[in-house]
């Protein structure tokens, strides 16, 4: 549990007001874990701008008692993963929609809903556990709030090789919706699953996913956050990664007044791999765009490899934030840690704020990090135009090539293609 912090009145008041506006779920197998999470939250309080990891992102709208409304985007685009054969699980403003969802049975998987799950043994040991561990050394109060107050989610146990991805589809239909979902994914040794997520979810959306990877297990996660301009989201992925397991997560963020994506990856085994990547594109012309990736990778095992690849394209005063840490614990020898965060600023008003951190307590490791921000290369732009490529198309080509390193983190070519198509359409509208 996190050490109690000095509590300002504002922090205590905000926390009390937020909790007062919530109806906390009662009973069920998660009751003890939820009570613990609530105690954690009350001890640390909701975040304020004064917290070290909230300096660049104002949490006010995420911690307020009520969600600010967000207009529902009338989206003419087909579903991003529509061409991919997958098992669909649909939530509308955070409420499970059975009619829109597929049958939840699939070979190699056991799927249940958090809201109506009985006493599932494996889930009982997991719910809130990785979140609680992830509170050290940096507090993540909105994740504790999630564990305490989530109204629904899915519990996925992966027992073998799964034939198709599972997609969590988050529809946003009501202007003022405020949703909290909590998912658990437990992957047995050598088992393998791909989880897709798409959609805005709600006007204000708080998600947490705890992923427990057994030895030699693999987890592929590709997420496309909804493009509704006014939506606000805070997401958390907590992973525990055992020996020789592979964790790969990619997130595409397009639009959104506020997005905070936290990934807390604990590599506990040896010879494991953990990659987390993101591509974000935002144009703050008519609605603000503020996108924040906060990543914490801990190496406890030996011979492990981690990669963080984040790219942001910012326009008209948009803001991008990257806070990424690689922590190499004593004894985690032969660690190969890599981190890159880059922003392409399409004008002088946009800004990129980066806080890359390395903390290394082992001597035989290879860790590197880099962070850059800059404009489109004028020389390259002129070269393309001199060959007849129109300005907007030339810019789009260069922007896509800039994002290429992040997209390359997606292993499946079909999924990477779907992501690229989405980006191309966005760029065609925005450049």
């Amino acid at each position: 549990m996190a050490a109690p912090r000095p509590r300002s009145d504002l922090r205590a008041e905000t926390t009390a007001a937020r909790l007062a506006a919530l109806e906390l779920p009662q009973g069920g197998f998660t009751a003890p874990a939820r009570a613990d999470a609530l105690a954690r939250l009350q001890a640390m309080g909701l975040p304020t701008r004064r917290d070290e990891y909230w300096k660049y992102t104002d949490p006010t709208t995420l911690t307020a008692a009520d969600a600010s409304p967000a207009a529902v985007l009338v989206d003419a685009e087909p579903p991003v993963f529509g061409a991919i054969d997958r098992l669909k699980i649909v939530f509308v403003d955070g409420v499970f929609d059975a009619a829109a969802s597929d049958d939840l049975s699939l070979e190699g998987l056991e799927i249940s809903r958090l809201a109506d799950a009985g006493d599932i043994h494996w889930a009982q040991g997991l719910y809130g556990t990785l979140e609680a561990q992830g509170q050290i050394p940096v507090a993540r109060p909105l994740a504790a709030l999630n564990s305490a107050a989530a109204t629904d989610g899915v519990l996925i146990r992966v027992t073998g090789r799964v034939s198709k991805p599972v997609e969590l589809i988050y529809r946003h239909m009501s202007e003022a919706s405020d949703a909290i979902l909590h998912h658990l994914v437990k992957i047995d040794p050598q088992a393998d699953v791909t989880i897709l997520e798409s959609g805005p979810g709600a006007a204000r959306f708080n998600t947490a996913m705890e992923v427990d990877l057994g030895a030699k297990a693999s987890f592929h996660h590709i997420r496309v956050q909804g493009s509704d301009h006014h939506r606000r989201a805070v997401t958390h992925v907590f992973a525990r990664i055992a020996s020789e397991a592979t964790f790969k997560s990619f997130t595409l963020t397009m639009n959104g007044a506020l997005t905070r994506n936290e990934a807390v990856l604990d590599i506990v085994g040896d010879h494991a791999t953990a990659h987390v990547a993101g591509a974000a594109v935002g144009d703050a012309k008519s609605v603000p765009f503020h996108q924040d990736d906060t990543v914490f990778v801990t190496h406890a095992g030996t011979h492990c490899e981690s990669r963080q690849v984040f790219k942001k394209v910012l326009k008209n005063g948009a803001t991008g934030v990257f806070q990424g840490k690689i922590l190499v614990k004593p004894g985690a020898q032969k660690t190969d840690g890599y981190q890159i965060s880059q922003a392409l600023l399409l004008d002088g008003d946009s800004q990129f704020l980066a806080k890359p951190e390395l903390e290394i307590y082992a001597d035989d490791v290879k860790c590197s990090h880099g962070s850059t921000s800059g404009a489109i290369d004028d020389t390259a732009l002129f070269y393309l135009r001199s060959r007849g490529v129109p300005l907007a198309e030339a810019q789009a080509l260069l922007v896509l090539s800039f994002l290429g390193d992040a997209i390359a983190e997606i292993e499946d070519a079909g999924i990477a293609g779907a992501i690229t198509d989405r980006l191309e359409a966005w760029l065609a509208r925005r450049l």
Partner: protein
Amino acid sequence: MLEIKNLHVKLEEEDKVILKGVDLTVEAGKVHAIMGPNGSGKSTLSYVLSGRGGYEVTEGSATLDGAELLDMEPEERAAAGLFLAFQYPVEIPGVGNMTFLRTAVNAQRKARGEPEVSAAEFLKLVRAQAKLLNIDAEMLKRPVNVGFSGGEKKRNEILQMAMLEPRMCILDETDSGLDVDAMRLVADGVNALRDGKRGFLVITHYQRLLDHIKPDVVHIMADGRIVKTGGPELALEVEENGYTDILAEVQ
């Protein structure tokens, strides 16, 4: 076809004047060569004609088939038929050479109201051209000019020219960095486009290229002006004696 009249150009950011009244006309079917000392303004002329930013035209005009180039965006100039083979071809990481070529060809076709070429047809055309220029198929898959040798970059410029089939080709020191065999391939590429309807402006320091691409007219540029114009023998004179005598004579 290309008509440059009294062109004066300064740098946008500083008060440095680079072109001080260039007059030059290239007729259809002709090859004009420009020679001249380092820093005399040859590349600047080629950039200004193709629309690179950073320069300010203070006087004069440049028309292609009667249309004012200086009022057009770079891509419009390209669609009008202008092509510049860069002295220093640009590397574009992350953009495949093939994607780049196809985007360019189709963009120009679209601008001219012509149908796009299909991917399959395009692949066939590029492969054939690349073979003529001795460009490896593997190079076509790599990002534009990234990791290409100096000579490979120059050959890639000529490949682009061959695919785009421009009416007015400007070659800025395309011969520099080419080995003897590559020079011949590049010259063959240029000569293949000499069908009497296109114009060529070949910027070079050496007679060697002009042995392969026979010029009709040779100009000497010095300090931002064309100071002397003559036939192919002028290039031989430069090769033999350098610029000192010519410059002294025109002073």
